[in-house]
């Protein structure tokens, strides 16, 4: 994979506070990469450095092979979309979108044509004369988006652009942006703290924690094969169960839980026999049966609570040493509290994580 954007050992200090630490990240042309993490994890700072609003304390940012540390923001040719849209309140929607084109010295006729096309793309042609304050949040977001795309920038940066929208609109915009990315072949770096947003839209997700990338991979990789405890807990919901490795065989490890039960689990990193580890088991991969089923792993448990949540049934279980949560599909039968059940899951639905 030929890298288009490269963060080469980037470190950023604010005073004595280290917000990004010796970070390496490569992004390919046309790729959609999400920087996902809790607030204060350094993801936004990294984006601000790429845009040129902040300077790294050390390290280089390379674009297409050349370091751009010394290039000022207005010469970087990157479209930025902010969470609060950051539209120019004193200009009309049309003037907002024309702004980057005027900055590039384009002729009036061409600007008018391009603005019309950009407005058409986001279905806002009727609103060209309006002020941003006269538009709804979703419409403003679409204006901000087309303003950042109209000059065909080399990279599009988005800083939690959908954070202020309500859930339905947000999900629609996610699909719209994903569609734009595919149609126009854009390179997009997208900052979010919403894991489902990152999974929905991205080619790859970089999970940030405390100024470092904990894991980078496809949505499927970070969800199904979390490399660290942080990733497992931050993306989706998971059961973390402590145990000791008894044997490792190829891609699988046998782990003895504190309750004495044995679990066979998939391994992604390297673990040694005798090591204390965590097992990550996704709640929706757990099946409940009243008689011991055929699943590779089976834990004897008792139902402590069960909550109907529309699209799934959420069952809390207790087994001698640890609580467990299972999410069951809508066709599942009810499990009243006190029912003795077996919780079964395959080895590949379970992951060993070194603590």
């Amino acid at each position, binding site marked *: 994979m030929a890298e288009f954007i490269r963060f080469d050992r980037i470190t950023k200090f604010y005073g004595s506070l280290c917000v990004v630490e010796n970070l390496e990240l490569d992004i390919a042309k046309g790729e959609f990469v999400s920087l996902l993490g809790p607030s204060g994890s350094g993801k936004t700072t990294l984006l601000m450095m790429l845009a040129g609003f902040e300077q790294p304390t050390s390290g280089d940012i390379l674009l297409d092979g050349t370091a751009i540390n010394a290039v000022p923001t207005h010469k970087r*040719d990157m479209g*930025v979309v902010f969470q609060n849209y*950051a539209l120019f309140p004193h200009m009309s929607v049309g003037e907002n979108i024309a702004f980057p084109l005027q900055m590039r010295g384009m002729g009036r006729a061409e600007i008018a044509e391009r603005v019309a096309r950009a407005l058409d793309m986001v279905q806002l042609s009727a609103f060209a004369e309006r002020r941003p304050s006269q538009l709804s949040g979703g419409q403003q977001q679409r204006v901000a988006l087309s303003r950042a795309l109209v000059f065909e920038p080399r990279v599009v940066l988005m800083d939690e652009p959908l954070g202020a929208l309500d859930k339905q609109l947000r999900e629609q915009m996610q699909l719209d942006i994903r569609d734009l990315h595919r149609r126009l072949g854009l390179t997009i770096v997208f900052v979010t703290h919403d894991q489902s947003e990152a999974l929905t839209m991205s080619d790859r997700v970089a999970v940030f924690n405390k100024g470092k990338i904990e894991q980078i991979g496809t949505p499927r990789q970070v969800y199904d094969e979390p490399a660290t405890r942080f990733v497992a807990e931050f993306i989706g919901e998971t059961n973390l169960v402590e145990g000791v490795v008894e044997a490792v065989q190829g891609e699988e490890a046998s782990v003895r839980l504190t309750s004495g039960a044995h679990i066979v689990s998939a391994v992604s990193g390297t673990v040694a026999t005798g090591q204390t580890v965590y097992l990550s088991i996704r709640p929706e991969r757990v099946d409940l049966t009243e008689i011991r089923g055929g699943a590779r792993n089976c834990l004897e448990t008792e139902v402590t609570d069960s909550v109907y949540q529309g699209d799934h049934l959420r069952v809390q279980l207790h087994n001698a040493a640890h609580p467990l949560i299972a999410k069951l599909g809508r066709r599942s039968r009810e499990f009243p509290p006190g029912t003795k059940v077996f919780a079964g899951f395959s080895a590949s639905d379970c992951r060993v994580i070194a603590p």
Partner: protein
Amino acid sequence: MPMKLTKFAFASLAILFLVAPLIAILPLAFTSSVILTYPIPSWSLRWFEELFTADAWRRAIVNSLIIGSGTTLLATVLGVAASLGLRNRLIFFRGTMRTLFLLPMVVPAVVLGVGLQVLLAGFGLTNSYAGVIIAHTVVAVPFVVVSVTGALAGIDERVELAAQSLGASPTTVFRRVTLPLAMPGVLSGAVLAFATSLDEVVLTLFVAGPNQRTLARQMFSSLRENISPAIAAAAFLFIAMTLLIGLVVVLSRSFLAKRR
């Protein structure tokens, strides 16, 4: 209900207290008598005539306009520049710097006057328009700084960052985004600067020569010489001018606001 009534009565009294001096002086502008006292024998515009025909008064009005415009221009430019500088978070002792800019508001005018006279004499600027404009600018800048920093604080920094990312150089960002957005504050600051200059007496006493007598200064000295109703007419003119400027600002602000 009695509470409401009390509030209303208090408000009326407070307003009356504030405008009573104006109410006292304004009718005297239209007296036909030669002395500045009540009762008014009959109504006349003779003192306005005097104002616009007597050489001393006419020159004073022109001087006030020249010095007022000069001060407004200089104070606005300096005040806007200072406010922009004070925005920079990296500046050392930002709070102290800001206080320094506001100092002329609280320092006794007499102290400033003496200091300015000594200073301007050193540059040979006493008894010149430039000297008076500089002196007035010193006391006018704080008003511009207060008003413009307030307006700048209301601008979302990310709007300016967005402009940069869209290809605008720092000067273009200022011209196309920052300045238009801060314009209401700049306008208010400019008007306050003009009003300050119009009203300024103490500094003018120290640094102005006989050729730079302003309207306020002329009123002040004619008070000592002979208390003629021309002073009341000048006061009327003063208030009319101030109200007019105030009106212009209010109108232009609402015009700017409507464009948002």
